[in-house]
């Protein structure tokens, strides 16, 4: 309550101030501004009289003059890159002000594992993004807001569906069978991304949802991403993929505030794929099925259909245009933060978001509530309590991939017959699809997820420089997915309705206890030492029930499962438990503010590993040199910071499923003779591996931080090499052992790369500021060894083209595998009989080629293309470079930011194309293909004939350059004039207009070049996925 009074008092004060601004005796004040570090005078510094609009600026010599109302006036002295000073005039008429580097300010404190550090004193490599930057994108998702903004961090959302899964890769993928997502640490609570926490059935979950989508960007104070071993090794066995530290807002800053943030937006589909409509479609179908009386007419009575039927009067549906809609987004956030100077500090926020997809009945909503508080019981003892609640619901049967990943809704938008509008999912002419309209309206899918996180901590200052921190936190998730596909949908048709309930819940607790000692000794020795103990447990359980054949479909049977006539699978449930136990310590030593050393060591125990290898050690060491602190650097004022960093260390990855080191008995049901029941059998499955242990990543990093011209240009550059060994591989073992796989520590992957991040202040005048920031990343992944085999095939769901990639020694993860497309067989390639290939023309093994078929390159010398010898690496999912570029402009009360993002040199296998190019006789085709397909009179070398062979071979024909440059986000903001605010009795009001995904420059022909297929080993595959939309948002933020 005290704080409310405090805020109230402030408000009253504002009101009284605004009433009593009568001028009595004005005073002229002159003065100078110099840099605190003694590097000289500061020109262009802004001097403002507080609570007035009087401003001045220092001249070339750092001098200024200004008229102030009275002796109690306060001057606000501010300068880019420097800490803002407030000076009360008093009796003085000449004032000299010293400004120190901004880095000493609070917001240059970065959160590192189990502590904080000043950015200037870092020895490791980390990237940070603050609340202001995160709030620019109004995508609603924290992770998407980070996209493109952080050096070394590649964020890709799996599709444009609201709430869709996001994959984050920090400095490249480390692993094949173990997880590659970073560790998340949310206010000290360590969380692995686990898709199993979402209750979804295998029927529709190929793309997946993001289990951390419940994080509200409005709650976030900062995100710090730990990248190199010096930074991550303190998280030992969980640090190898990088660590994302998320800090939520806390109270106790400034004067306290009440904020209301409201926005609304509209999204629209970015692109349509042009497919045949009306008579064109009939023409195509007749050409494809010349014997079909549905499409052809026999005009001369010779028993042969010779003319295409006239369909020009039939209603033709352009499903994309009919079924994509504008999706509206609404969001409200209300937060209260207590102010400075109280024993009880708190911050609380309630937020609600509702985001409609660009397809009917598809939406995503989120409710979040957060409370964080700290209480100083006395000078030595502080208690902290935090709770985070989020409830998200993904709604709508919208998935881009169906059970076989080609009968999904998105596919049917482009592939479904434009003349059919009826609901008969069983019509063979529909090729297994139901009308997309019927699908949207009749299918039901709801996936809610509740996440609760609580943390409690005690900070006890044993001595002024020795702090004990005890913390215990717990979390739980609960999710129950419900799906219902009635007979009128393609998935329910053959089953007379299909209903699925899948439930997942998890519980975890963790206790982290640290003792931190920090002291500065005479002679310029600074020591910071931390020692900690940690233990945690994690439980995950699942339950799933599936019913089929519903006689009554007038209501939704997911709410009455017993109505099913058939339960095709037995109800299934599972439970797993993991435990971890750790001891860790870190020592940080700084000599004379010039030479910095950090060493850390963590000993981790994990239940996931074999009994002989439960524990492992993860050391790291780093050295940094602040060259600008050396005497010889003091003489110049171009370079005001120059720091070199070196680090090395080992981190681990234990992200495999539980119990992999144990031997397992599989259930092996064998039907009884009469086929009406199954006998349970048991069979030995994978062999135990008591030596199973962590995969270890050794990382080497060399970095440089440089700031020029009084911090107007800041550059951070890092080169790194990551060497992942003892990879946790589900390794192939000889089949004669009776086991197919065994979890082993085999193989090696390396990542090396370069990261640059450059921030510049291009223009800074009184009214106009222009700042830019750029990050540029190169990562090269390479599979060094796979242990027992030379390659691992990578298959995707989807029926026709399945083996699309390989993990291959000597190539990066994400390499496509197939034939090299070599044009089209022309009539001239054949002898006069039209069937026999001329000598010297490449033959395709196993088929009789005819003109119009696809030709592939013979990589050997035998003149025959066969799958064993003539398939090769045909695409790479890895970009040559990627990054983001943002420009921020401020003019008086207006601000504008333009953010662009790019990826260059990566390729995508656009597998949607074989569907859109007439592989199935029932599916619609793209206009581009139909107009250019090979015919005897159009002997193109680019597109095969409509019935041409080769369309369902994995080949470079489908490989497209997926480079893109995207105007990701533009924000135009206006902050209401402070005077006006005062009149309105508010602290500040900000209006903003945001545009997301406004324009994409790309050659890619699918919906969107930014593709991240669910299979991380082959992310560059597109099976027609949910397109990203462009969104306009208008919002307002009020602070009291």
């Amino acid at each position, binding site marked *: 309550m005290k704080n409310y009074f405090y805020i109230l008092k402030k408000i009253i004060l504002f009101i009284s101030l605004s009433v009593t601004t009568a001028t009595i005796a004005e005073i002229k004040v002159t003065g100078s501004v110099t840099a605190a570090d003694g590097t000289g005078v500061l020109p262009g510094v802004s001097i403002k009289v507080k609570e007035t609009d009087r401003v001045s600026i220092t001249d070339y010599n750092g001098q200024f003059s200004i008229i102030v109302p009275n002796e109690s006036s306060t001057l606000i002295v501010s300068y880019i890159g420097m800490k803002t000073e407030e000076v009360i005039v008093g009796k003085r008429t000449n004032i000299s002000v010293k400004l120190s580097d901004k880095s000493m300010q609070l917001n240059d404190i970065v959160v590192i594992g189990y502590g904080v550090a000043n950015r200037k004193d870092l020895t490791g490599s980390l990237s940070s993004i603050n609340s202001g930057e995160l709030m620019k994108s109004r995508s609603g998702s924290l992770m998407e807001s980070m996209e493109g903004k952080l050096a070394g961090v590649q964020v890709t959302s799996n599709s444009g569906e609201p709430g869709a899964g996001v994959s984050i890769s920090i400095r490249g993928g480390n692993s094949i069978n173990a997880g590659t997502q970073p560790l998340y640490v949310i206010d000290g609570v360590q969380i692995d991304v686990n898709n199993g926490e979402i209750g979804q059935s295998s029927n529709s979950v190929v793309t997946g949802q993001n289990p951390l989508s419940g994080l509200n960007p409005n709650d976030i104070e900062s995100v710090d991403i730990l990248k190199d071993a010096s930074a991550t090794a303190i998280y030992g066995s969980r640090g190898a993929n990088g660590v994302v530290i998320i800090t939520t807002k806390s109270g106790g800053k400034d004067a306290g505030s009440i904020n209301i943030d409201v926005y609304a937006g509209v999204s629209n589909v970015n692109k349509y794929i042009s497919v045949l409509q009306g008579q064109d479609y009939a023409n195509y179908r007749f050409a494809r099925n010349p014997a079909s009386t549905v499409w052809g007419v026999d005009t001369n009575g010779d028993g042969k259909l010779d003319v295409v039927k006239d369909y020009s009067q039939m209603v033709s549906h352009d499903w994309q245009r009919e079924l994509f809609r504008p999706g509206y987004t609404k969001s409200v956030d209300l937060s209260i933060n207590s102010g400075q100077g109280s024993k009880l500090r708190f911050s609380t926020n309630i937020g609600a978001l509702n985001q409609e997809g660009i397809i009917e009945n598809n939406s995503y909503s989120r409710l979040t509530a957060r409370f964080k508080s700290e209480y100083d019981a006395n000078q030595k003892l502080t208690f902290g309590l935090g709770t985070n609640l989020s409830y998200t619901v993904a709604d709508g049967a919208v998935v881009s991939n169906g059970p076989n990943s080609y009968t999904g809704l998105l596919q049917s938008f482009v592939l479904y017959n434009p003349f059919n509008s009826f609901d008969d999912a069983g019509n063979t002419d529909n090729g297994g699809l139901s009308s997309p309209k019927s699908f949207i309206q009749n299918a039901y899918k709801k996936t809610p997820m509740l996440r609760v996180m609580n943390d409690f901590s005690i900070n006890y200052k044993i001595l002024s420089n020795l702090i004990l921190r005890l913390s215990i936190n717990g979390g739980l998730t609960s999710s129950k997915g419900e799906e219902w596909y009635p007979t009128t949908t393609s998935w329910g048709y053959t089953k007379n309705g299909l209903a699925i309930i899948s439930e997942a819940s998890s519980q975890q607790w963790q206790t982290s206890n640290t003792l931190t000692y920090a002291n500065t000794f005479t002679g310029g020795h600074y020591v910071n030492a931390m020692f900690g103990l940690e233990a945690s447990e994690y439980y995950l359980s699942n339950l799933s029930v599936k019913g089929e054949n519903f006689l009554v479909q007038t209501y939704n049977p997911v709410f009455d499962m017993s109505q099913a006539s058939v339960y095709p699978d037995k109800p299934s449930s599972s439970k797993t*438990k993991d435990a971890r136990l750790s001891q860790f310590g870190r020592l940080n030593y700084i000599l004379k503010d010039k030479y910095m050393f950090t060493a850390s060591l963590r000993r981790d125990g994990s239940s996931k590993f074999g009994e002989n290898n439960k524990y492992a050690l993860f050391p790291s060491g780093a050295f940094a040199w602040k060259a600008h602190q050396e005497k010889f650097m003091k003489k110049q004022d171009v370079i005001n910071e120059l720091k070199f960093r070196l680090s090395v260390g080992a981190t681990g990855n234990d992200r495999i499923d539980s119990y992999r080191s144990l031997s*397992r008995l599989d259930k092996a049901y064998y039907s009884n003779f009469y086929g009406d029941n199954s006998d349970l059998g048991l069979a030995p499955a994978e062999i135990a591996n008591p030596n199973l242990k962590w995969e270890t990543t050794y990382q080497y990093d060399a970095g440089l931080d440089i700031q020029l011209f009084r911090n107007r240009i800041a550059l951070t550059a890092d080169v790194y090499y990551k060497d992942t060994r003892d990879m946790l591989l589900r390794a192939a073992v000889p*089949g*004669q052992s009776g086991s197919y796989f065994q979890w082993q520590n085999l193989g090696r992957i390396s990542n090396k790369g370069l990261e640059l991040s450059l921030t510049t202040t291009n223009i800074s005048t009184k009214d106009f500021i222009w700042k830019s920031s750029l990050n540029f990343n190169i990562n090269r992944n390479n599979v060094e060894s796979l242990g027992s085999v030379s390659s691992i095939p990578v298959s995707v769901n989807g029926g026709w083209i399945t083996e699309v990639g390989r993990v291959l020694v000597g190539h990066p993860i994400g390499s496509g595998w197939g034939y090299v497309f070599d044009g089209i067989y022309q009539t001239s390639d054949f002898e006069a009989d039209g069937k026999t290939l001329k000598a010297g023309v490449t033959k395709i093994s196993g088929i009789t080629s005819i003109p119009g078929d696809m030709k592939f390159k013979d990589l050997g010398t035998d003149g025959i293309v066969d799958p064993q010898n003539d398939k090769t690496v045909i695409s790479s999912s890895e970009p040559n470079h990627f990054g983001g570029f943002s420009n921020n402009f401020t003019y008086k009360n207006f601000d504008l930011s333009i953010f662009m993002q790019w990826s260059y040199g990566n390729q995508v296998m656009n597998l949607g194309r074989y569907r859109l190019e007439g592989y199935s006789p029932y599916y619609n085709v793209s206009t581009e293909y139909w107009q250019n397909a090979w015919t005897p009179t159009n002997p193109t070398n680019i597109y095969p004939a409509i019935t041409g062979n080769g369309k369902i071979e994995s080949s470079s024909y489908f490989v497209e350059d997926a480079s893109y440059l995207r105007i990701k986000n533009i924000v135009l903001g206006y902050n209401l004039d402070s005077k006006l605010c005062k009149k309105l009795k508010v602290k500040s009001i900000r209006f903003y207009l945001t545009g997301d995904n406004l324009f994409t420059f790309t050659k890619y022909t699918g919906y969107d070049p930014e593709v991240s297929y669910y299979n991380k080993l082959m992310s560059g595959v597109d099976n027609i996925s949910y397109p990203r939309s462009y969104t306009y948002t208008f919002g307002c933020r009020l602070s009291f």
Partner: protein
Amino acid sequence: MKIFFKLIAIVLIVSTTYSCDSFLVEEPYSFPSGSTLFESQANAELALTGVNEILNAQNIQGNGNHPLWGRGMHYLTNLGCDELIGSINEFSDPQPKMMTNYGYNSESQYVSDAWFALYAGIDRANNIIKYVPSIPAMDSTRRAQIISEARFFRGFYYTYLAWLFGAVPIPVVPNSNAYAAREPLSNVYSQIISDLTYASQNLPARNIITGRVNRYTAQAMLAKVYLYLASCKENQVGKDLDNPLNQFDFVDQADSYQKCLTLCDSIYHNSGYSLHPNYNYLFIADTKQLKAEILKEDLMMVNAGSGGSSEYLLFSYLSGPQGNITTNGGNYGNLRPLGELAERYDLTNDTRAIQNISGNMSSTLSQNILTIKYYSTVAVNTAGNNFCLDKFRQSDPTIRNALGIPTWASTLSFPLLRFADVILMYAEASYKVSANATNARKLLLDLRNRAAQLDATKAYILTQNYYRTDFMQELFDERSRELCAEGWRRFDLIRWGKLTSVVTNLNTTNVNSIKPNYYYWNTLYAAVIQGNYAPYKIWFPIPKRELETNPNLVPNSGY
């Protein structure tokens, strides 16, 4: 403050667990661990079911998709001969496609999956053979039966490995040596013969579990092995290939024929099996009523059913009438018959032809068999493009839909060893041992009578029409007429040394312009088969995955 001290206490308690290793011990909640398998007789029964399950496993340890009789084995044993062919260009999946036309290679999934599935079965059997003898307090009769059945299956699975790949490693103890090299055929077969002989002496006359293997199954399988070895030796199979491991020189030809004869004679007279009067019942048994019928003739079958754990055959990929899988129970039409098969039959008088040789599935015509509705097939059209091998069929899919069986799936009992096959082996062995064609022919009379639906006139016509001066020629054809698409033709042609000539002589056109055009599928794809065929392909390639994981394996020559 009290709370504070309580918390300190909690933290301290937790901290004490730090020294306690039990904190990290794994407790699996949702699966039994490996060491618990052979604790009791009940578990031994479960382990034995596990050995049976391999026959029709949907996947094994999450790997493969119906690797054996659920789908894959049909592709490995029926294709590239003169019965069935793949409608190659209509295949969407390259994996089954390459099995249809000798396009397979060491990376072929079907080959690799079969290899692993058979070894997984052997490993399951090895576990039983090793651990069941020491289960305490177990019924001794049942103990012996379980061990005998496991030995049958070990022999059975090794036989298929040897038939498909030739020489293979022969681990007989679980977890012995995953890196063992291939043993020559002599060793492989001596292991097989030892297992099957043991089973044929120790299994009961009928299994206590209906439909599972018994003494006569083991005898018939052993007869198969002896017949295979004798004819391979006689016909010098693989002699010209550079495969030192895959040689049959060790075989005592006369002795093997004699042993086959003795075994067949025993089964013929003692087993209690007989020919079922209705040939067609044997291939449509996907309901309880019809399954009961096939017990009279089938010595061994693959069970399939709907008991709630998806133990189905992937019927939509197999031979059978092409049709609509959801409405009339037809399949995709991936596997089609060749004209050579049709021409082997007397199409009017042989009931087997009426069952087997026909057009695609009708959506309107149907018949009731033992009260169960089956859709019927239409006649082959003039062009021949609806020509199907319709031996295996399914009942009305609405029945199966109502049980929750997926449309692609079938609960058909697939016959692995039929009494008819025993008769054919009996005839072959008897001719080889005594060179008396008349006696051998007499044995075929039962089959001809049934084919004529016990109509003496028709039976006489069949006997006349099918008569060949060379009895072996007649037998070659009779085996195909009776057993087509049951997984024997490829092995038969190999052991008779006839595969190369059969493939080379496949018609690629409708030579005599017969109508309907039974050579329709020949004209489309037979040339592709001939183009890809090479004599070394009588052996499947050792999978690349196995060659890489076990450096002691050597590939078969040619691959």
